[in-house]
């Protein structure tokens, strides 16, 4: 059975299953969300107005039998935070269930004429609209629980917290995990507000009895699955007991701190004296000491990497899941906070209220720089979430992110690109990531630059670290590869084993080719990725973005960053090379 597009129109409360048009037939995941947004959304529309859309798409291999670590769902729209096109993806239950219903993408459009709020239930029999007035104001923990009480078969719950209802620019979209907790977020870029602008509080997906995912070439798929699984399970980083499985993504905390690239106290230093206390190693120690919670937690069924964790408090009660590197950096180091329990408490608030943890932590750091509270004041930092929960004017400001807060409080040291604040790698100390932050179609984004074996990318083995030669080309290859992986449904972390293990890369390509019935080789990966990037870049150009938006913030160009005391000094012409190809030929 061919995949369908499910178009849900909130203006007249209708749902239509449409045949997938030829122009979208090859796409899935990010490739599909960006194609649909490019084709159907006016780039000059207001992100919160009637003409923006939210597109939800599983990847090529999502929902297939036991493709390893393939539970990512892509969410796309025009971002209220950046004004650019946006794709944010999440783990959790939704990807596999949407795919198994035979749905290539859900397009959510329009706004209810009666101004009421709804939640939407999708199963094999179709779509039903439900009154959501009793869910309004509720956090995602309660919404997830209520949805499982009302609907059978442990469905996926895609939802927005109170900040999404308020159309705040830092509202993320939550997806429940196998234990029905929120914490899997399509966090970045305020897509929760795009969902809120359609007056949809939640989308519940039950795949029971669904047709499943058609696999055109099962032998090729199985062969690829075996190679990829072997690569993941044999690589030091992704194997059982390896770096990610043992310590989670927060395994990076001590490394980046040792390197002098950990953004600390609103990007004023590259080292934090309390880094070890908020690191993945410390999470593991706490789980052992408190005999509660866990490391090696799977965020979606079928994940073999299992890099998530469940963090316990001193009394053994669970505080939050997961504590990731980005979370610990933003709510910890960047706020001068070295207490994991408080990082966990703030993470819980973000997950429940519906906030992206990176943007929120960076926003608190701006408030600290503005003098609303001191760096390191964990009690007051935690109390800021009450302002958001109680919907005070200050809470409204904070839930609109770094740039809004900096503007209101007169802060000029603003670590953003295209309106989105930077993740946990200081571009002054680690210059390579700066190329990606500056030029990504998504604003400052750390997930835009994953890579695959250089000989496959055609960039050669040799990359001179001391010059800019070839760096723009390399950044493009990374961004294109990432756009491809973001379309597969696979977690980006498969990039580690497939980078190092040739068979793993072949396996990834073969699983995609097997599902789609394609003749696909490794050489196609970058080209397919570039097609996605081109649509995104052209959308942004039509929305008014130019090369002048592909820049690292001014203060990083004149303020030396300790301990290396370096500034951002990459010439603008080098950055402009990354997307120069878009208008060629």
């Amino acid at each position, binding site marked *: 059975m061919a995949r369908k597009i499910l178009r849900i129109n909130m203006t007249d409360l209708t749902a239509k299953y449409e045949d997938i048009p030829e122009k979208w037939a090859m796409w899935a995941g990010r490739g599909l969300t960006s194609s649909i947004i490019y084709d159907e959304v006016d780039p000059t529309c207001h992100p919160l107005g009637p003409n923006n859309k939210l597109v939800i798409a599983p990847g090529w291999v999502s929902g297939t039998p036991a493709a390893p670590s393939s539970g990512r769902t892509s969410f796309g729209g025009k971002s209220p935070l950046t004004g650019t096109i946006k794709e944010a993806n999440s783990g959790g239950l939704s990807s596999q269930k949407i795919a198994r219903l035979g749905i290539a993408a859900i397009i959510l459009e329009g706004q209810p004429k009666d101004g009421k709020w709804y939640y939407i239930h999708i199963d094999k029999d179709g779509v039903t609209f439900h009154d959501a007035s009793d869910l309004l104001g509720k956090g995602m923990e309660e919404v997830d629980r209520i949805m499982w009480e009302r609907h059978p078969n442990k469905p996926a719950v895609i939802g927005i917290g109170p900040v999404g209802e308020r159309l705040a620019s830092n509202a993320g979209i939550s997806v429940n995990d196998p234990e029905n907790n929120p914490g899997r977020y399509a966090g970045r870029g305020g897509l929760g507000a795009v969902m809120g602008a359609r007056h949809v509080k939640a989308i519940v997906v039950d795949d029971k009895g669904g047709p499943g995912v058609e696999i055109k070439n099962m032998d090729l798929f199985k062969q690829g699955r075996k190679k990829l699984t072997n690569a993941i399970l044999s*690589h030091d980083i992704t194997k059982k007991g390896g770096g990610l499985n043992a310590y989670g993504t927060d395994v990076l905390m001590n490394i980046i701190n040792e390197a002098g690239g950990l953004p600390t106290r609103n990007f004023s230093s590259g080292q934090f004296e309390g880094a070890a206390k908020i690191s993945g190693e*410390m999470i593991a120690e706490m789980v052992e000491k408190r005999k509660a919670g866990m490391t090696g937690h799977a965020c979606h069924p079928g994940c073999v990497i299992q890099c998530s964790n469940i963090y316990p408090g001193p009394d053994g009660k669970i505080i939050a899941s997961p504590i990731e590197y980005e979370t610990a950096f933003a709510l910890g180091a960047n706020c001068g906070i070295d207490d994991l329990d408080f990082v966990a408490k703030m993470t819980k608030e973000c997950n429940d209220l519906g906030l992206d943890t990176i943007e929120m932590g960076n926003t608190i750091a701006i408030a600290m720089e503005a003098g609303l509270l001191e760096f390191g004041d964990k009690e007051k930092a935690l109390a800021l979430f009450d302002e958001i929960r109680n919907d005070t004017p200050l809470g409204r400001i904070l839930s609109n992110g770094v740039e809004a807060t900096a503007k209101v409080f007169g802060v000029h040291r603003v670590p953003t690109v295209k309106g989105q604040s930077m993740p946990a790698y200081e571009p002054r100390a680690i210059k390579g990531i700066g190329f990606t932050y500056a030029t990504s179609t998504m604003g400052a984004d750390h997930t835009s630059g994953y890579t695959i074996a250089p000989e496959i990318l055609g960039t050669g083995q040799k990359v001179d670290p001391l010059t800019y030669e070839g760096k723009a080309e390399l950044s493009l290859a990374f961004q294109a590869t990432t756009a491809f992986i973001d379309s597969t449904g696979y977690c980006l972390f498969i990039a580690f084993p497939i980078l190092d293990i040739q068979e793993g890369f072949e396996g990834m390509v073969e699983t995609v080719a097997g599902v789609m019935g394609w003749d696909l080789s490794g050489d196609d990966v970058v080209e397919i990725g570039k097609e996605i990037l081109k649509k995104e870049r052209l959308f942004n150009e039509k929305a008014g973005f130019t090369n002048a938006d592909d820049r690292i913030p001014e203060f990083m160009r004149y303020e030396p960053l300790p301990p290396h005391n370096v500034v951002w000094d990459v010439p603008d012409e080098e950055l402009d090379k990354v997307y120069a190809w878009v208008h060629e030929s």
Partner: protein
Amino acid sequence: MKIELALYGSIARKAGGRHIKVLEVELPDGARVRDVLDKFGIQPEEIGLVFINAVLHDLPGLHLSLDDEVHDGDHVGIFAEDYVWPYHYRGGAPMSPKLAEYTSTHDYLRHRPRDAA
């Protein structure tokens, strides 16, 4: 002379930690990274990333830092072999001259350089 040493991951156990151990270490003048390892019975193949004063001196599988000298007051950070620092989060970070030279002529993108000994 004294250095501050941080051991991360499985090698922390060799110095009495569980997952991290940070401690001051007395060493004779002229000591090298391999002397630091010897003091705790850590084998070179157990280590990966090595930092001295926030400068990267080694990558998993290379063992280029073993003869690098450490000096009084240095901070030395050593990670167990199975830590990842992907290239796209690493490219452009400060490196020792020896490592910079190596990576300018060899595969630098992989987690573990392919021709690493």
